[in-house]
Structures are given as C-alpha cells and as structure tokens.
C-alpha cells in the first residue's frame, strides 16, 4: 500500500491499485464510530458518445442513460435487494449521478468488511431485463417532473443550456422524458460493460477500520472475478464555441420571488495554468468581488436590491468555465446593472487576498472533521485531478496578486448570458 501524506493538516490516506485496475483509497480514523464507503465509476451524464468495449466505432447513447443505469444497477438476480442487505446491519445505502461520475455508497458502523464486499458484488453483477428496464421509466419520469416544479432547478438547467452549444454539460443529468423512453436493455448493457470495468472505477473507504484487513478482503474478492484487460475508453472530446447560446432569457414560472443568474463563459485554453489552481483563483477573484465580505454586497444590500448575498458557482466543463452569480430578487434588472458596473472596474488588493487565503486554508482543515466530507473530497480529487493533491495548502499560500491581475486581464467579462426565472402573474 502506498501512503499519501497531506502536509499541514497532518493526515494520511492509503492507496492501492489492484491487478484488475481497481483503485482503492483508505482513510482510517481511530476516533470515528461510523464508516462511509463509496464505489465510483468515471461515467456521468456527459459521457454519451464513446467507443463501446470490443467495438471500433463511436456510438451515441440517449441522454440521461448514466443516471438510468444507476437506478438499474440495484436490480439483482440471486442476491438480496441491496438496500435490504445493508439495512440488516443498520447501514444506509444510496447512489447518485453527476456530470462525470456515478457513485454507489453506504454508511454504517457495523459489519464494514461484509458490506464492502457486498457493495462490490452488487455493483459488479447487476441483472437487467426488458421488464425491469421498462418499469423504471415511470419512476424516472416522476423524478423529472419533480425537478420541473422547482424554480431553482429550472434556473440551473437554463444556465447551462443558454451558455453551451455542443458541450454535453449543456444537458440535464437526468435526461428528458423522450430520452428516457428510448433507453433499452441492450443500451444499458453496452454502457455497463464499457464503463463499469474495474480499471475505470475506484473505491474510497473512510471510517474506523484496520486497513490491512480491509484491503486484503478486497483483493481476495476481486481475484475471484474474471475481467479481461481493457484499453483506455475512447470518449468523444467536446468541442465548444466561445460564444454563448442566448444572451438573455426570461422564463415565466409559478414563483413568488424572481431568481436570476449572471453567467460568464470563459475559455480554459487561454490560461496556461493547472486547472485546480485556476479554479481556486476563480473562487478567490469572484469571492472578493461579490461575496458577503465585498463592497458590492454592502452596496447592493444598502440599496435594497438584494437581501441575501450572491451565490457564486464555478462550473468547470472541460472546455470552458461557467461562472454564475445567482440571487433571488424581484429587482433583478438593477442587480444585473450593478454587477456589470463592478466588472468594468475591478480592484483587488493584497489585504483581501491574504484574508481569503486564511479562509481557504482553514476550510482544508475543517474538511477533516467529518469522514463523509473526506470521502467526497477524495472522489472530487480523483475525478477532477486524477490524483490526490498533497500540497494544496502550498498552492493556496502561493496565490499572488500578479497572477490574479493577469487572469483578470484575460477574461472577456462581456461574454455572458443572463437567465431569469420570473413569476408569470
């Protein structure tokens, strides 16, 4: 087992890569009472054009299929139903799908080893039939309807749809009703065989356990399963124009207070910088400009344009960054004007930067309070950076005003899209 030491926070993560390609990350913590275990495939909603395993031609699968597959992996032939099995030892199980990954998880204090092996077994051997695939369609359609009733979800869907042309991040993770109805057992098989190979997956275990005992049980379990070596999966690389799709859209919905988003689209190619560091810089820059410690925030609140601070979202969609400034207010036109004004006259000083560094460093340490957050942090690192960054605090300490200014100079702040969800009455 390899040891990954995280400087400054005084924490250690253990790592092992198995013969079949499966990667395992372990974070044992003596004081914990609970355990948190996740099993993740690098298959999310954006991966819908790829070369299937043992084929040579690129195919396109319906949108929403990764999420549909997540639901169906729980279908088993001879094994007990997964949630039942976990419940027997008081563990809770769940799963979720994002743009870039699908994760299966359980949390519980008892029978950790048995539960880990069961997690591996059920995810690695699901049972799809025409009937159980068809019966899932109704449930997922209900889930789509539920999202349509939430004004905030509608806002987020439009932010991506109105900024991105061809990048798959533009589509919703869940798909639409038409996509869902075109999903078949055969398509699920194809996706499953391609993306659920151990070499495309990783297991993260955080909690109170003996790391040798656990890793040995996992190695034994995986040895019993036959997998042939798989080449690297060929996935269509997104191409994306720099322009936005719609510069402004007002959507009428049933809501009391309007929601609005000011979205700036930034090409990643123009920066010659590690993407983790670039992300941190974006949080720092837009935080200093617009968060609750900013002069902007004070001014907008004093003028009664907003009551709550802006929510700042940074979405990295491989080709571009979408920076969204989001708020709930009926005075959205005034807010948008004020944001524009601020962006035309950006000033960031040393003192603000030093304060934000304290915040970032402190948050790194805060994360280790909770085994669930540590687990999520590891998943995020693997998906985003493909490894665990050990010197993140050094990166934070090295942030400097010169780089901030050079980043700001490169951004075209006018390349924006505005989305508003307003009351129809």
């Amino acid at each position, binding site marked *: 087992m390899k040891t990954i030491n995280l400087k400054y926070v005084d924490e250690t993560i253990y790592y092992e890569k198995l013969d079949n390609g499966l990667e395992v990350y372990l974070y044992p913590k003596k004081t914990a009472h609970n355990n948190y275990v996740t099993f993740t495939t690098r298959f999310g909603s954006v991966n819908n054009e790829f070369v299937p395993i043992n084929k040579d031609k690129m195919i396109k699968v319906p949108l929403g299929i990764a999420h549909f597959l997540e639901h169906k992996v729980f279908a088993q032939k001879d094994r007990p139903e997964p949630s039942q099995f976990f419940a027997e030892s008081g563990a809770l199980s769940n799963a979720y799908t994002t743009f870039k990954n699908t994760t299966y998880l359980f949390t519980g204090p008892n029978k950790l080893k048995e539960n880990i092996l069961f997690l591996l077994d059920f995810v690695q051997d699901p049972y799809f039939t025409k009937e159980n695939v068809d019966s899932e369609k109704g449930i997922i359609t209900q889930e789509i309807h539920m999202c349509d009733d939430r004004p905030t979800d509608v806002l987020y869907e439009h932010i991506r749809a109105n900024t991105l042309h061809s990048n798959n991040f533009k589509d919703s993770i869940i798909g639409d009703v038409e996509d869902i109805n075109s999903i078949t057992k055969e398509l699920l098989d194809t996706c499953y065989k391609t993306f659920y190979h151990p070499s495309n997956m990783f297991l993260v275990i955080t909690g109170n356990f003996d790391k040798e005992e656990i890793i040995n049980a996992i190695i034994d379990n995986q040895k019993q399963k036959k997998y042939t070596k798989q080449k690297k999966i060929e996935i269509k690389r997104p191409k994306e124009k720099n322009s936005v799709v719609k510069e402004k859209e007002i959507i009428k919905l049933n809501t009391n207070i309007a929601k609005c988003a000011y979205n700036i689209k930034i090409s990643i190619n123009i920066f010659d910088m590690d993407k983790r560091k670039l992300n941190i810089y974006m949080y720092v820059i837009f935080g200093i400009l617009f968060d609750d410690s900013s002069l902007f925030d004070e001014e907008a609140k004093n003028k009664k344009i907003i*009551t709550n601070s802006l929510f700042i979202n940074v979405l990295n969609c491989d080709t571009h960054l979408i920076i969204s400034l989001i708020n709930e207010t009926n005075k959205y036109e005034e807010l948008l004007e004020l944001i524009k004004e601020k962006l035309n006259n950006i000033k960031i000083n040393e003192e603000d930067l030093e304060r934000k560094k304290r*915040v970032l460093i402190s948050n790194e340490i805060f994360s280790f309070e909770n085994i669930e957050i540590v687990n999520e942090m590891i998943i995020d690192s693997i998906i985003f950076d493909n490894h665990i960054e050990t010197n993140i605090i050094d990166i934070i300490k090295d942030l400097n005003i010169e780089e901030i200014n050079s980043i700001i100079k490169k951004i075209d702040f006018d390349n924006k899209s505005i989305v508003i969800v307003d009351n129809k009455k």
Partner: protein
Amino acid sequence: MTCEHINMGAYNLHIINTNTFKTVTIEVNFRRQVAKDEITKRALLKNVLLNSTKRYPTERELIIESENLYDLKLLSSSARMGNYTNLSFKMRFLNEKFSQEKMNKQSIEFLMDILFNPNIQNDAFDKNVVDKCKEKLEKSIKTLKDNKVKYTISKLLETIEDKPYSYNSFGYLEDLEKIDEKNLYNYYKDMLNNDLIDIFVVGDIDKTQIKDILKEHFQTRTFHKPKTDILVKELEISKKVNHYTEEDEVNQSQLTFLCTLNGLSDFERKYTIRVYNEILGGSSNSILFDTVREKNSYAYYVNSDQKSYDNILLIYSGIEPGNSEEVTKLIKKSLTDIEKGKISEEQINNAKETIISGIKATIDSPNGIINTYYAMILVNSDDVETRIENIKKVTKEDVIKLASKIHLHTTYLLEGVKDEDN
C-alpha cells in the same frame, strides 16, 4: 466522552472535552414556551444579532472579522421542540493549535460580542439593520411556496387549530409589519433575562478559560425561570378523516397525512415509535415505499415522520396527479397491515439496526454530541448506551400494540392541474 455540567447561576454550562476534533464548537440555546405571536420576533432576532455589533457596526465588517478569525463559522436557528421554542447561536472555529495563538480567546469573545454587545442606539437596535433583516425574512416567508413538500405539510398542519405545530416556524407577514427596532430590542432584553439558557462547548479547550470569559461577559441575572412541559397535548381521535384539497399548477401532486398518537407510554414515545416509523416510512425498505412506490409506481417518494413530543405522525408523498384516491387506499392499508401484525421479524430487526447506527453516528460530529446532551436536558432522554440497549428491547408485539394508538386524522392534497394559459 463525558459532559461536565456547571451551574453558572442564571444559566447552565455544559463542557464536553474531547480531542476528536480540530475545531471548537460553542452553542448557546435560549428557550421558552412557544407563543404564536413571538415566532416572528425570534426569527428576526436571530438575523439581527448576526448582522452587526457595536464593535463591527456593518455586516461587512463583521464578516471580514470572522474571516480573519480563520473563517469562524457562525450560525443561528430557531426551532420548535414540543411546547418549547428554541433559539440557538452556534459558532465553530479552528482550535488555536491549528491556527495561531490566542485565537480561542478571540473567537469566544467574538461570540460574546454578538450576543451581548449589539449595535444599540437610543435603547433600540439599528433601524437600518432591522429593516434589512425584515426584508430578508419577508422573502423567506414568501419563498416557502417554492418548496412544494414543505408548503403542503405546513398547510396540513395549519388545519389543526391552537396546537404549537400548526404555527408557521418562519413567522408571519402580519406580525413582521408590527416589529420595529425598539420593540425588538425590548424583546431581546426580555429573552436574555427570562429564557432558559444552556451553553454547550465541544472541543479540546481549557475549561477555566471558558468559564472566565463567560463570567465576564454574560450579564443575565434572573435566576427563577418558569419551566414548561415539553409534551404537546394529544389531539382527539377523529371519527371521520378530514380531507382538504388545493389546486396548483404543478407536475407532481403532493399528498400528505396527519395521524394522532394517543396514550403513548414514555418508553413508546422514546423508543417504540422510532421503530414503528422506520418500518412504516423511514427508508427505502419501508412498507410505504414498498407498497406505494415499488409495487405500484404511483409515487416518486413517500415518507413518514414521527413527532412524538407533538403526539403526531406525518406521512407525505409526491404522486402522479389523479392518483390520490388509489394512493390514499394504499397508505391506509399500510397502516392497518402493521396493526394486524403483517410485519416480519426481519423488518423489525432492520429497523432497530438502522436506528442504532444512527445513534452511533451522531457522536462523530460536534453537532450530534450537543444534540445528544441537550435532549437529555429537554426530554430526559437516556445516554447513548442506554438508548441503544432500549432500542434492542423493542419487540414485534410492542410495535403492533403501538400501532393501535395511531389514528389517521387529516389529509391535505396539493393537486396538480394544467396551466390554462398554455
């Protein structure tokens, strides 16, 4: 892990010394008997106090200071617990061992400043601050409708008159209008003097230091404070179930149920009801989930939630419009199935294991630890080990017996209709 209880005269201090965490958490709880016309004041007060102090007179200055204190996190919340209303101020900061010297003292004094040294002029809060917070609260009251689940449950509860759970916990727009910087300040002083106060500290920190800082800053002098029985009086069993329907332009209908709990023993209230609820609708292995969602695909979600100190149990589901009668039948059937004993030993066992896991997991976080000790004060709950032992003791017969004490009382349906304009 042990908790040291210190009587500080007008308030109680509870210190849980542990080196499990790299942070220190302090929670100050104010509570008194709930009154409908005070809810809005308390909801507003929790924002006003966190907005500015004498030393940091603007929100921005206050936030900059909290960031300088290594991103000290500050949170306030108001909640109802049975007949009590509870206002809590919580602070979490990096232990100075991981930041820099003297940070513990500075951080605690920052909290003291927020609670006891607000931005007062002429015997009133700052008008600007109060106005801003009023607007913010008005917005959160108005946006309740965006969340269809919460909205429908609140409408269901409002149909029951004169019970604390029928009060809207965010507050009321008509009460908000009447609040100004002066009467809110008076209420604040009243709260400091007359509320029951419990302070919790979790972390690796010097006990004497905390006591000294509190003694210096905590000025309340009232020693005799009235205690209330936390348990809300039972609702009478209704011979006929009351039905309410409201139409809305939604894709998914919300169907909710209120059941009364009648004649529960202390053990049933603390333990059996938790097992019952877990089996009925606590998880994706529950009877409701299995009957309504899995077998019939009628609903995307269906859950139950027990409020044993309110003597009620809630069931809520998101369903396909037009299916409410079918779903109601299935939910009624699920309730009678448990009463008839149509539950397996396996279901009982799984429910118990799930609850025990939950109890164990709570002590992994400072919040969970505080909640555990606060519940001991509020409802005389047992310690973690005893709770686990007692959950293990619950039998199938206990659950069946309890089921006969649960009665459907009211249903509220938010029915989806198509928008006629489109």
